[in-house]
């Protein structure tokens, strides 16, 4: 085998013009496909990146008054499409006042339910009891940062005392995450506020007048869920609406549009690659086959000297593999140049992966493997021809 590989390589290098031609044929097909694939990745990643930069893209929110229970939430959280879900209290009681402990100013803010795993508060790993997250605008107006101690207080017309809830600021969200003054806390905190508005006694918070809390039947107006990924958003919205017979709001149409664009771009690329691969296969099959026909006497000579046909069949395969490796190296080199030129031409910085034209290491490995398999397959006809070359040719057909 070692001898056969050595002979194949020596022959390949001696016929370097043919090697150059085959490498040029490979690069001529692979480079445009790589650039197309890279552009498809870059544009798609840019669109997806824009969507995914806003966690609310994955959000499904109920609208109107509904009745959800803790059991509904447990069920919802058990669905594989769900990344995070929380109950919502009545929107009527969404407003609270917030001030820093010891501070003088207060700000009115919307309070929204959150919790551990909520993508809206990422990268905060957990939201514990007594902790809140503030929007950037609210934190700035209060002059507080993460770690500050704040108080949430609210007042109802029929209640002589305010409800005062102490909290620690676990994090301040980046400005682009949520606009306006928003404080996010655990659903238990919001439920407490709702109970306060519903005139229940909250002795733990110094409010003894009111209906006994034990008589309260905790129901929630809505739910807010986050899909695990963009592909899950549409199906999850449908499932929630079917399961609970409600209407919901989500950016499903926009997400579906981008995903559809990605699929269509992928399909267009696959069609282009398919047509190109057919042409390349024809060129390589006949090219390798022609090489074996041209070298028939030399191959017959190897058989005459005692190399078995199975080993001789590897002669064109080894050459094809080396040609493919050189072709891949040249192709990726030219792709790199083309991608750099495209970046400079369009002055992009569109995606996290780098820019307009991107191919990941894994994708590059997969492409290289596919090309090697493809070229090897194209060399099989030549391998069969080499294997069937009659060693007696040397005696029978004197040149």
């Amino acid at each position: 085998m070692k001898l056969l590989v050595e002979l194949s390589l020596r022959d390949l290098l001696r016929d370097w013009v043919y090697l150059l031609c085959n490498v040029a044929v490979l690069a001529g097909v692979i480079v445009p496909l790589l650039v197309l694939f890279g552009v498809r990745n870059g544009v798609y990643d840019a669109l997806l990146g824009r969507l995914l930069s806003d966690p609310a893209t994955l959000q499904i929110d109920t609208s109107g008054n509904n009745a959800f229970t803790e059991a509904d939430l447990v069920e919802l959280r058990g669905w594989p499409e769900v990344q995070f879900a929380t109950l919502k209290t009545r929107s009527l009681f969404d407003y609270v006042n917030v001030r820093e402990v010891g501070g003088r100013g207060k700000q009115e803010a919307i309070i929204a339910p959150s919790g551990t795993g909520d993508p809206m508060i990422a990268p905060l790993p957990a939201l514990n009891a007594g902790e809140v997250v503030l929007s950037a605008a609210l934190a700035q107006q209060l002059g507080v940062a993460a770690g500050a101690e704040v108080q949430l207080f609210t007042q109802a017309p029929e209640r002589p005392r305010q409800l005062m809830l102490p909290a620690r600021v676990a994090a301040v969200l980046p400005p682009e995450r949520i606009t306006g003054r928003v404080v996010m806390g655990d659903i238990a905190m919001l439920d407490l506020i709702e109970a306060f508005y519903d005139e229940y006694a909250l002795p733990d918070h110094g409010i003894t007048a009111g209906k006994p809390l034990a008589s309260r039947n905790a129901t929630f107006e809505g739910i807010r869920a986050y899909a695990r990924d963009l592909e899950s958003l549409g199906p999850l919205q449908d499932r929630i609406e079917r399961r609970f017979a409600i209407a919901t709001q989500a950016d499903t149409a926009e997400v579906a549009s981008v995903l559809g664009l990605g699929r269509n771009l992928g399909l267009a690329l696959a069609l282009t690659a398919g047509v190109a691969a057919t042409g390349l296969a024809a060129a390589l099959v006949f090219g390798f086959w022609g090489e074996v026909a041209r070298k028939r006497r030399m191959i017959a000579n190897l058989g005459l000297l005692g190399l078995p046909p199975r080993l001789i069949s590897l002669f064109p395969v080894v050459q094809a593999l080396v040609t493919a490796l050189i072709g891949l190296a040249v192709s990726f080199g030219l792709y790199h140049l083309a991608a750099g030129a495209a970046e400079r031409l369009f002055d992009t910085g569109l995606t996290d992966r780098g820019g307009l034209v991107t191919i990941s290491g894994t994708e590059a490995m997969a492409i290289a493997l596919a090309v090697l398999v493809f070229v090897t397959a194209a060399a099989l006809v030549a391998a069969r021809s080499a294997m069937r070359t009659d060693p007696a040719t040397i005696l029978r057909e004197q040149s």
Partner: protein
Amino acid sequence: MQPVIDIDGLSVTLTSGARGFTLEIPALRVAPGERVAFTGPSGTGKTLLLELLGLLRAPGAGRYLAALRDGAQTDLGALWKTRRGRAQIPPLRGRLFGFVPQTGGLLPFLDVRGNIALSQRISARPDAELIEALIGRLGLGPVARLHPDRLSIGQRQRVSIARALAHRPRFVIADEPTAALDPENAAEAMALLFGAADETGTAVVVSSHDLELLDSFALTRYRLGLIPDTDPDRVTSQLAPLEASASRPAATAGPAP
């Protein structure tokens, strides 16, 4: 002495449509180191005979035995009858035979030394000393690092001869080895072939049209000739011993005076 080749009643038939050609070898025994020449008009199957001997074509009927270097005798004809036997043929051919074709038997991407060494590498019989001895014996020293395209036809034939002998085969098959050479070079090449074969103890079978050249060497001669056949659509050629000009191994290596 046990013959290196022992053939009895071997035949092969080629057909093309209704027409057929049969080659018959009633008997052929080649002793170690013997020189044998096949002659005959065109169309009598000289190349076919060499293909049969060189394990390049399956025989139809008959017995074809060969003695290996360790003294063991193997039935070469039987090898063609089984899949396992056929798989053994290429490496056995490499070890048992050396070939000197008329032209074009060298690999263009190897230099002279590499081409000569190739038969040793394929048959796993490395012997650098023998390569150097053959290069010296055949006058290839000055061109040992050149590739075949830089050699004259005569030099290429000498490289072919060296390669055919380098792995110490039992038997060299030379098919019209001097046909492309001028008479002076032809005689020299033939003398070198026989001389080098003598030194390695290798039997040589040569096919040639050049009766004058063959007459100048001590050889066991056979002639192929057409014989009558009962089937009008079939041509039969038969190998028959010719009155020997001389007999080996007692003869000298060089051209006859």
